[in-house]
């Protein structure tokens, strides 16, 4: 079971001119097994939503609630959120010099499960996950995100998604900067995750392109810090044809 409920979420960031409100009351429920796409123009607050839910210290929650299966996510530390079953695939994964991918993956898996994974099956699982994402087995010896190409970073994020097996995955513009082959590989990884029992996905994207490979149950248009319109996947087709102009004009 997994149900992520976001209710009237308000978030500010500190700027030179004082706090600025980025999220202005976001309400969204991702029920068991559902995939929701959030689409919106640049600067609408899509990434802020992702990072706020994950607990990035830069963002201050000023109102609203986020719960995962009824548990108060906002009361948890960043690592507690991950252990509760949240996962954020980042748009700009961070380099961690001197820490190998295999050490990182094993440490994360141990933290999530509360015990070290069984060595033999774990090595097999890691190699399988890397291979499915077209990552060479020697990838494990490289330092986390250091010197990775844009595509390698995103594929590494999805490898983590499959290995750490969260309840709900938030994918923050995982499609941006990918060529069509890499986009297919990454989408297949997300679809393998979705095929598992009861997994929720919040797919944040600027483009409709990825929705050809990952079919959402719901599409939300995000404008100026809140959901402006919600619908089924036909809403994505409409956005593809018309762009975001309609929402931006209405907003202006």
């Amino acid at each position, binding site marked *: 079971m997994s149900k992520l409920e976001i209710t009237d979420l308000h978030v500010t960031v500190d700027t030179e001119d004082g706090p600025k409100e980025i999220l202005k009351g976001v309400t969204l429920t991702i029920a068991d097994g559902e995939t929701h796409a959030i689409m919106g123009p640049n600067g609408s607050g899509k990434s802020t939503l992702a990072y706020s839910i994950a*607990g*990035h210290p830069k963002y201050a929650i000023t109102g609203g609630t986020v719960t995962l299966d009824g548990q108060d996510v906002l009361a948890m530390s960043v*690592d507690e959120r991950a252990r509760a079953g949240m996962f954020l695939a980042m748009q700009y994964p961070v380099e961690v*010099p*001197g820490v190998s991918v295999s050490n*990182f993956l094993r440490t*994360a898996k141990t933290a999530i499960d509360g015990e070290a994974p069984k060595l033999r099956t774990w090595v097999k699982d890691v190699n399988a996950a890397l291979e499915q994402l077209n990552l060479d087995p020697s990838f494990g010896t490289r330092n986390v995100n250091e010197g990775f190409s844009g595509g390698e970073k995103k594929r590494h994020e999805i490898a983590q998604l499959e290995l750490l097996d969260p309840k709900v995955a938030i994918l923050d513009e995982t499609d941006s900067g990918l060529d069509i082959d890499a986009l297919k590989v990454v989408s297949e990884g997300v679809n393998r995750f979705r095929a598992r029992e009861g997994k929720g996905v919040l797919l944040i994207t600027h483009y409709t392109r990825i929705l050809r490979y990952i079919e959402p149950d719901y599409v939300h248009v995000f404008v100026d810090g809140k959901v402006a319109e919600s619908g089924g996947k036909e809403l994505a087709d409409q956005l593809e044809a018309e762009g975001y102009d309609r929402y931006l004009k209405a907003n202006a």
Partner: protein
Amino acid sequence: MTVTTESVRSALEQAAPERNKIESHLNPVGSFDVADHPVPTGREEIWRFSPLKRLKGLHAEAPFNPSTTSCTWNTPEGVRIEGVSGDEARSLRGISGLVPNTRFAARVLAEVPASLLVDVPADLEVAEPIVVSLDGEDASNTEAGHVAMRFGAHSKAIVVINHEGSSAMAAVVEIVVGDGADVTVVSIQDWADDAVHLAHHQARVGRDATYKHAAISFGGDVVRMDANVTYDGPGGSAELLGLYFADAGQHIEHRLFADHNAPHTKSNVVYKGALQGEGAHTVWIGNVLIRKVAEGIETYEENRNLVLTDGCRADSVPNLEIETGEIEGAGHASATARFDDEQLFYLQSRGISEKEAQRLVVHGFFNDLIRQVGVPSIEERLLSTVEAELAKNVLKDLAAFGQDD
């Protein structure tokens, strides 16, 4: 003999043009005569970072007493290692081209009656590291030592000098790397908390030779090490590595000088340090001089400091002076920072606790450097010493959590 000193201008001098006419006070002109070296006051550029009051007079007039530090070593086949005295010891003073630019180094050369000689003959490849272990017993005993290492042409060897226990020691280590030789010298300062160590390591790197020096400082009240390199012909390459971890109240100072006095020589400097606890102080001074004659050389120096707690201070000063534009490359980087919030967030967002994330980052910070030192038999020890240092502070809670007895 070249005096390795005339003209490295400090960044400070560059900032104050009216002082440009002064002969370099970063590397004052050397002399073997102790009388030419007045007792430092702390105002000198080369002493201004050092806590003179804690040096037990080693920089000044402290007597060099009979040593209470035990000194043991292994002797791989074909290598000569022994204490020598009299004329032989005297003949070894200055073999690296060292002309002392500090009072303590001049005093060591003039006053210490014996030398430890490490003699590796030409063409000998020594597989097993030569380990010289110094184990001090008395931090109130001011003492001094001279070590001379001679590596013949095309020889290959690793020497590890390991400092433990308590002492107040002034030391000069001279290293002669023969043409085409491949030499690694590692100096580990893992002293007890009350030790004081003032050291000067001087190497002369032969034609086409490869020299690696690694200074690793964990323990001691005050550790100051000058690690200098000159070249004895074109094509020589020097890698100067450093790893240090300063705790509350500790002063760890590393100064180095790569003097490119020959063409087509290389120097690569990487020093990394971590600081934790009130009053932890580290100093890194990286001097590189590219002389007119040194065309086609390549140099890069880098110092990174990771500040783990409040109350620490890391000084980092790279100085690069270039007298010829005909070079392959020259660069430097210096950075002192706290934990990177984005790195910690990334790791924590994968379920890893804050402490464990910090531990990963610190290990990662040092890992590549430890690998670069390239001595497998001490790699494990360095990793576990880093772990032990972390346990004192950053990981206090984790360590307690791990000890379920």
